[in-house]
């Protein structure tokens, strides 16, 4: 993941000229400007997901938390590039957890913003087509899937994410949880992610996280999930 991000960033750097405006690029919608990861714009206003997620949460989550992952990822990548230039393997290995955490944080949040939408933009409208069929086949119904996803979210011990993923080997879909900011990579492809870090809900729901997990389905952008699935 780190290597491919660096390659993407180097490529983007080559053609980064007049415009440094963040644009959606690649599957994950990650944005780069002048070789640096940048904070992607939200496709909706901070208050647009209310009452499921308050505007204050969205603003802090996007402008502060996500930005910090972007900044720290860029710092780690700069250090990595120096270490590569010096052929310093120890430092390269030492940077791995930082790249996983901050790069993971950047990837996860980018995917998360995209798989949310205000009700006025289709948020909460159930999936259709091949994805709807796959969910019915794997879980029985959308409702069954949602309760299993909510149980997975509630079972996370500490910070982390729950994802609907597609197994690249079998094509099957399933629910997986990931600790902290570990991103969905390797055998699995991320389809739909829900942030279970306390910062994602605490200002509005405090310790009543089950209410957050239940309310978020009203603002899930199933169109974005369908796009990832196909």
């Amino acid at each position, binding site marked *: 993941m780190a290597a491919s991000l660096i390659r993407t960033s180097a490529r983007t750097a080559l053609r980064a000229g007049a415009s440094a405006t963040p644009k959606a690029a690649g599957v994950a919608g990650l944005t780069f400007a002048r070789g640096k990861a940048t904070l992607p714009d939200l496709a909706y206003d901070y208050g647009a997901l209310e009452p499921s997620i308050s505007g204050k949460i969205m603003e*802090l989550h996007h402008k502060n938390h996500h930005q910090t992952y972007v900044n720290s990822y860029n710092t780690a990548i700069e250090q990595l590039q120096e270490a590569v230039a010096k052929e310093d393997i120890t430092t390269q290995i030492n940077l791995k957890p930082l790249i996983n955490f901050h790069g993971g944080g950047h990837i996860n949040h980018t995917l998360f913003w995209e798989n949310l939408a205000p009700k006025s933009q289709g948020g909460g409208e159930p999936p259709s087509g091949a994805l709807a069929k796959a969910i019915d086949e794997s879980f029985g119904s959308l409702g069954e899937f949602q309760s299993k996803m909510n149980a997975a979210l509630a079972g996370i*011990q*500490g*910070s982390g994410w729950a994802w609907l993923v597609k197994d690249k080997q079998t094509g099957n879909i399933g629910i997986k949880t990931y600790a902290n900011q570990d991103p969905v990579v390797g055998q699995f492809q991320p389809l739909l992610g829900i942030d279970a*870090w*306390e*910062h994602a809900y605490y*200002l509005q729901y405090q*310790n009543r996280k089950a209410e957050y997990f239940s309310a978020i389905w009203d603002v899930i952008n199933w169109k974005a999930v369908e796009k990832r699935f196909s």
Partner: protein
Amino acid sequence: MATTFSLPPLPYAYDALEPVICKQIMEIHHQKHHQTYITNLNAALSAQSTALAANNIPQLINLQQKIKFNGGGHINHSLFWKNLAPHASPETNIDQAAPVLKAAIEAQYGSVEKFKEAFGATLLGLQGSGWGWLVANGPGGKLEIVSTKDQDPVTDKVPVFGVDMWEHAYYLQYFNNKASYVEGIWKVLNWRTAEDRFKNGVEGSALLKL
């Protein structure tokens, strides 16, 4: 019958740690978060009793992580409340409250300031939920700064004091600015408790007493 644990009262008022930790955080943290660990620990221990009587080994294994997480949450919070003290109380003065521990910190880290810097760096370096601890290798033993993830408790060393770095410990007041929380925590650290644990250790049974 499995032992049933109950929420110990705080040794100070909910607003006693202001302005470092606000009343609302303390109330939710103690009455809701800590209580939930206890409720889930009791449920897991009761299920364990049943599984043990039935020789149900898969179920016993299945319960281990629940006991570790919720038992750890109960231990960690019980230790935490007690190693905090009201703002500006005599307990927060290291010179008077912890002369022996202070000397050990200075001998090992050069100065209390340098120790605080190192401890703060460990707290801010945590990726995800967890705790930072000053531990001693036995009563009066060598000191070490460690971090533990989620609710993993310190079980093989003496926990001199711990700082909760779960977002629920500071978010309502500090939001993403956790550095300010870490900076402020020293103003409500109970050095008298720390001194006592450093000199005498913490018995297993005393871990959960306030």
